[in-house]
């Protein structure tokens, strides 16, 4: 019981795993490219939670540093990805990832 009431590492990891699963689900199943990008954000944040949780229980500051980096890179990634999506939309008149398969074969 104590195990459950006291928030420990496992809780963080569980949350992270759920977030990752949700993110993966969004990336793999959604057709809208923007929703896929949102799934990617979820995955990144799941990783961030892991970094921070391990950082907290390990006592160092490396995890925090990594989490900050990830956030910065995620921001950059979001900017570039949205630009790509806009360009895809300009060419294909659609942001439906399942219909964009011109790289086939």
């Amino acid at each position: 019981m104590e195990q459950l009431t006291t928030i420990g590492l496992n809780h963080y990891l569980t949350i992270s795993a759920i977030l990752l699963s949700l993110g993966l689900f969004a990336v793999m199943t959604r057709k809208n490219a923007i929703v896929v990008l949102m799934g990617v954000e979820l995955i990144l944040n799941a990783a961030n939670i892991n970094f921070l949780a391990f950082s907290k229980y390990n006592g160092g500051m490396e995890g925090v540093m990594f989490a900050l980096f990830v956030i910065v890179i995620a921001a950059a990634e979001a900017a570039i990805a949205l630009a790509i999506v806009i360009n895809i939309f300009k060419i294909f008149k659609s942001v439906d990832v399942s219909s964009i398969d011109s790289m086939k074969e």
Partner: protein
Amino acid sequence: MHSLIQLSIVVLLLPLLSFVILIFFNRRLPRRGDFIGVGILGTAFGISAYIFWSVIVQTYDPAFRIAWDFTWIDLGNVPGVGPLQIKMGIVIDNLTAIMLAMVTLISLLVHLYSTGYMAGDKNYGRYFAFLGIFTFSMLGIVLSDNLFAIYIFWELVGLSSYLLIGFFFEKDSAADAQKKAFLANRVGDIGMWLGILILYSQFHTFSFEQIYANLAAGKFALSNAWLTAAGILLFMGCVGKSAQFPLHIWLPDAMEGPTPVSALIHAATMVAAGVYFVARIFVMLTPDALHVIAFIGACTAFMAATIAITQNDIKRVLAYSTVSQLGYMVLGLGVGAYSASLFHLVTHAFFKACLFLGSGAIIHAMHHEQDMRWMGGLRKHMPWTFATFTLATLALAGLPLTSGFLSKDAILAGAIGFAKVEGGGIFYLIPVLGFFSAMLTAFYMGRQIWLVFFGESRTHLKPADNHHADHHAHDNHAVHGDDHHADHGVHEVSWNMRAPLVILAALSVFAVYSPDPLDGAKGWFMKMIPTPATVVGEANPQKGALLAATPAPHLAGIVSPSEVVASHPAAEPVAEEHGVASAAAGHGEEKGGHVYSDPRQAEIVHAGHAAHYTAIYISSIMVVLGIGMAFVVYVFRIIDPEKTAQAIRPLYLFSLNKWYWDEIYEATFIKGSIVLSKILSWFDTNVVDGIVNGVALLVRKFAFANNSFDKYVVDGMVNFTAFTVNTTGAVLRKLQTGKVQTYVAMLILAIFGYFVFYFTRLIY
């Protein structure tokens, strides 16, 4: 270099110049350039006459000899052969000087004569070119100082005679004759070359002078049999060229050539080359080789004479008479009558050239009728030809006051002397055959003269159908296409054909050669061409002793006192002196007489002199007998020739068919070669081709196997690889959907798979 040598080189090269000019430019020259041939030969004769004058008339020295040579090819030291150096050179002695003058004179006369005889021929210019190369080759043989050079010119003579004999090559008979002549000559030349090689293997030189010096010094390492063999092999060259038995068959057929060519080839040059060559190698012939030569000569002389009596073609009679006379010359050399033999060579060259040119004139006048049976009565129409032809005939028959008498008598005297020295027995066969042939010669020449020049014209007797066929067979006019056929009158020939006849007939008189009409030995010729000392003398002390013991007392009485035998006891060489009467024995050498190192030879020469009058008597009787028989048969017709021929039909046919030599060769060598070639052909088709085809089949089979391997194994592997790659690609291409989400799914699957793998490893 001696000036005479330089002049002789000019003489040698002039006919070659004529050949080169005429063969290339005859069509661009006026008259097809015949004046060039005649002019060049005239120049050559002029120079030769000067050489003759300087050597024979001015120098008048039996031992005269100048030589010059240069290294032609130096191959250094050839492994297995030794030093190989081929020299070329020129030697001029009395014999060369005489031959030079003779060859160029007869060639000049033949050139001149041909301007009339060959006029209108379509290959007129080429004819003169061939005469030029022929004369060049012959002069080369005359001038050469070594065996190698002689062999080269020997072959050139063979080639040029081939060209001349087959001059009317459109006729099959002429083409066959030229092939026959060439092949028969080749057979002899092979032997000659082997003989040259035997000598070369011993002495490493081709030069006559060095070979003889080495032989005299006894450096011949092999046995005497080898030396005899070398002599006989070299003589084989002569057998081929001089038409001796058994290679005489080409000469009568060679009558297919133009008649002036017959005069050149068969009187003065080619056939004389063989005799000349034997004279050049005379000093190295062993007694055994000389015996062989003597017997072959005697057989040839007799056989050809018996054939000549039944021939009807005017040129064939002369051809067989040539063979017969060449037999005499060879016989003369064989018995050691060296001077006499060469004397006969020269006299025969002139009177036989005269006869051939005369027969050419007759054939020309008779519109190319060659069969004597349909001639007759030409005496009135052709007085010049008749006179010259008769004079030459008398010389050939050997009647006194002619040149032929002097030389033939000297040979026969030598033959008697030889038989005596050799001890009689079978050796007497040689003079007997010689005398018998002399009789036959007189007979057939008498027959020819009568049939051609006397009696009434028998042209109309010629069977009509036969006439036509015969006419074409002998017709050279068809080839040169002139228009004589319209005019059937017989007429004397023009001056350019008459002049050579007169000159040649004049040279058949005894006075040209000797002041004494009965003894050639008194003339300049026999003095200038003394018998050379042999270098292989068989040192037979017994014979030497015999000679020394009996210095021929009975002979001394018969022979003029000028014949003095200087005979010191046995071992001393025998000195013999000609010309100067009452010379003491010791003066022999000083006064220009020469010394025989070989007693046998001295003995033969001496016995020959001794037999001189015997020979005169017998041969005169024989000649009178022969001519008398001709008169009895053809003039008085006491004996009917046809009935006689019927009575002795087998003999008549034997002679008419030339002893069946052509048939014998046909049955043996020709059939033999055909059978051999058939066997070889069978072998070729079945065995050789079988092997080749077998190999081809094997290769084919192997190639097919290889092909299958290539097709199924190598290609299979390549195709399988391609197929695999293709299939794999076809499967894998399905994975590349182009959809980002599929890739993500695969990515996650891979990571998942990796984790499963990693943790499974971790657990176990």
